């Protein structure tokens, strides 16, 4: 009898010890779609993870996890092996993330770029990359001599179409004759395909290249061909120092640190985050001095105005390719419209692949 009592007492103390200790055992897991060395999308998430680690929180990552049947196992393994907060950093992890979240109500999940939050322990987050595109459009409109901007696009999803439109609108504002030519590569990361697409656009007369894919191949191709380019997701200046005018940088670090601390301290709530220049989730790389001091000043002002909300990337009047009005004069597009954007604005060439 007494023996049993002591046994219970000891195990109770043990359990107590564990629960008190749980702060020290707090662990954050990351699931990446690409290799950490892609210098684009995954690289930036990895930088965010490094920041969490630097804040004194233990982290783990698994890279190059295919978006098929394997994703669920990896997410589940992270949940099972004592991770308290798990960031799944690609759209294709949406359903597996929600599925695992159902079985682990005490683990918090954060899914990047998705829209499903089926359980109270799933949050979603993404960045207003289109604000960066507005700046690129302004610069491209001023820098182009051929009035042709080449755009390498991955998949015809709203996020990508939003970027194309935001860029085109901003470029038109400073240069009404602008044309946007698009090549769809149907991949997020394929240096070979991206380089070919860049070359094809250059051959069609584009003298400014930008891309919504992850590798450094487009900027390197542009550097070789002597045309302007922009870095995507991370600062790619060192890969094409002459050609790159600036880069759109995804800075996940502040968000990751904030959410990790919140989860550790028990203040984590479900939310849908869409941050931009204002919060710093979207940042710009250094501006190339080839742009000239005046243009740099203009763009820096525009950047400030976008951040403060004085200027919105999608301010009316905006027309679609057929000339139908999408956003009336003096209005700005609301987030609902931005989230579901699936038509090109006037001035973009070609059709959205269907």
């Amino acid at each position, binding site marked *: 009898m007494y023996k049993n009592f002591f046994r219970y007492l000891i195990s109770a103390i043990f359990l107590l010890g564990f629960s008190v200790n749980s702060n020290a055992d707090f662990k954050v897991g990351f699931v990446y779609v690409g290799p950490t060395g892609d210098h684009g999308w995954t690289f930036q998430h990895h930088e965010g993870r490094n920041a969490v680690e630097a804040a004194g929180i233990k982290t783990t990552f698994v890279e190059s996890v295919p978006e*098929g049947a394997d994703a669920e*196992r990896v997410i589940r393994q992270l949940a099972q092996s004592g991770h308290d907060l798990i960031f799944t950093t690609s759209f294709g992890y949406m359903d597996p993330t929600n599925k695992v979240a159902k079985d682990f109500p005490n683990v918090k999940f954060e899914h990047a770029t998705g829209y499903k939050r089926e359980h109270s322990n799933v949050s979603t987050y993404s960045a207003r990359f289109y604000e960066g595109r507005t700046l690129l459009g302004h610069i491209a409109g001023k820098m182009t001599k051929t009035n042709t901007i080449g755009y390498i696009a991955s998949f015809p999803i*709203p996020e990508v179409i939003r970027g194309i439109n935001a860029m085109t609108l901003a470029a038109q504002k400073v240069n009404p004759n602008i044309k946007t030519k698009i090549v769809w590569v149907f991949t997020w990361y394929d240096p070979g395909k991206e380089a070919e697409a860049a070359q094809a656009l250059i051959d069609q007369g584009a003298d400014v290249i930008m891309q919504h894919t992850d590798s450094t191949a487009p900027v390197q191709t542009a550097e070789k061909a002597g045309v302007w380019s922009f870095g995507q997701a991370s600062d790619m200046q060192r890969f094409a120092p002459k050609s790159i005018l600036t880069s759109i940088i995804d800075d996940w670090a502040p968000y990751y640190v904030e959410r990790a601390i919140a989860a550790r301290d028990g203040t984590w709530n479900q939310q849908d985050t869409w941050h931009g220049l204002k919060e710093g989730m979207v940042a710009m790389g250094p501006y190339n001095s080839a742009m000239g001091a005046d243009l740099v000043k203009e763009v820096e002002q525009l950047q400030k105005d976008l951040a403060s909300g004085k200027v919105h990337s999608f301010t009316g009047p905006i027309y679609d390719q057929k000339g139908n009005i999408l956003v009336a004069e003096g209005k700005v597009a609301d987030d609902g419209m931005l989230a579901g954007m699936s038509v090109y604005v006037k001035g973009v060439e070609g059709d959205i692949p269907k």
Partner: protein
Amino acid sequence: MALYFFTPFIAIILTILGGGIIFYILGFNPIEALKFYFITPISNLYGLSELLLKATPLCLIAIGLSFCFKSNNWNIGAEGQLTFGAIVGGGVALLFYNQEGFYILPLVILAGAIGGMIFALIPAILKTYFNTNEILVSLMLVYVSKLILDYLVVGPWSNPEGFNFPETRQFSDSSRMPLLFEGLRIHAGIFLALAAVMLSWFILYKTYLGFQIKVSGLSLKTAKYAGFKGKTMILVVFMISGACAGLAGVGEITGPIGQLHRMISPDYGFTAIIVAFLGRLNPFGIIFASLVVALTYLGAETAQIFLQIPKYTGQVFQGMILFFLLASDYLLFFKVKILSLKKNELRH
């Protein structure tokens, strides 16, 4: 002959030793790393279920490939046949979207097998009637099938509520593989793989067709003298192989994935080639080989989660298994002699 079935084990042992050395060079404790690699992933029920889940498509495809390889037909395009099988099967599943009925799943599975079969018939017909090289044709068709899949999930079959993301709707439950245990992902598709193992053993070792296949593999000339109809046999082995790959594809999309999208297979069709050879093209050997290779996938994930060992070691392990297997075969079947050249021989 006993040695012939023994070399795969030598290859696996050498791979483990080689892996240990690599881990040591990378600065990890090799024993601990190997434990996380080969033991931790399957130390619980969930892990075992995942192992079987991963091994199922590998085993199915490899069984199919063994028919081709045994008869000297080099079907390298199982990945394409898997993809096309998944497309046809997935198409039927979408056709019956939101409908109930016990007959739907069998129809979906059948459609997958037929899809794979049709896609495998292309290189087979081109080989038999136009004398093309089946290695090239079947390999190139892999990319064709992936592009068809891309087109369908981006365009006509994309989920109308899916914001244009490249994926179809989630299939209804009536076209999903039943799960075998609550909470585990292992599904009825494993019975398809086991049935394929049994059937292939029966065909290869107990039927006239199996005899023809083996004789053609050993010597095409003998097969011709014996009066075997070479063309029919080529068509048949490709059809079997394609059907198996199609089944693997449909098993993935109606099992763990539940929809069509661009990433339905992490190159199972190619990895299954290693599985087929590691299993010595023997149905039961293939079961064993598919489990070993499946474990290298799981191990790579666990090793990265617990020790942060780069995940690409999984591919290194798969490569090493094949390398050591070929090397042991070479040393087994050929005598290595060190010859010394005499001075006067150089003049000739």
